[in-house]
């Protein structure tokens, strides 16, 4: 089980802020592929991963990163703080 959290327009497009997912995905890219296949709203949110960023257990990471041991995956657009 892995917690998946969404922020900003990714959250709006998917329609929920957080969910717990049962997955065998080995990498972030595998998880994205799995989510895309679920429903249209996921396909829309993950249409272009170059427009997205990912954090694993609250540390910025990459889409080819390994999910072994990871408890929380977050997907969001590039940050706009400051």
């Amino acid at each position, binding site marked *: 089980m892995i917690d998946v959290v969404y*922020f900003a327009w990714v959250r709006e497009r998917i329609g929920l802020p957080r969910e717990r997912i049962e997955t065998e995905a080995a990498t972030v890219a595998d998880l994205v592929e799995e989510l895309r296949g679920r429903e249209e709203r996921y396909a829309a949110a993950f249409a272009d991963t170059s427009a997205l960023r990912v954090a694993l257990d609250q540390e910025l990471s990459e889409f080819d990163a390994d999910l072994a041991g990871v408890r929380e995956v977050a997907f*969001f*657009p*590039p*940050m*706009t*703080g*400051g």
Partner: protein
Amino acid sequence: MKISVQEGPFDAGAELDAFSHGRHEVGAIVSFTGIVRDRAGGLVRMEIEHYPGMTEKAIAEIAEQAKARWQLADLLVIHRHGALPLGQPIMMVATAAAHRRAAFDAAEYLMDYLKSRAPFWKKEVTRTGEHWVEATPEDEDALSRW
């Protein structure tokens, strides 16, 4: 060192006074305050979303990097989230150092990194609709000079 991620408003003047008070070892204090502005016309408010937990960690890391890079006596970061009306302060940084160059550079470094490495997302709510503010290539380019 003070880092605050908060929903409520802050008084930038009072924060700067408190930050500056009683310092005898520093010759320079630089502060920056970011304000909600009406970029396109018709802005009603700004809504700032963040990633609780990661936000605090990311800012602490950015602050540690600034301290490792410049000789700073102290630094301050305040960043708000939630609904912010036009003209209100969004965030503030302050740096204290012996000389102005370190204080200015460290403040700019903090600003550049807070903009694209701290998990905040701004949404502009205008009279005609709402949209997420997009990061610009310049935001990313700003990091390369460090």
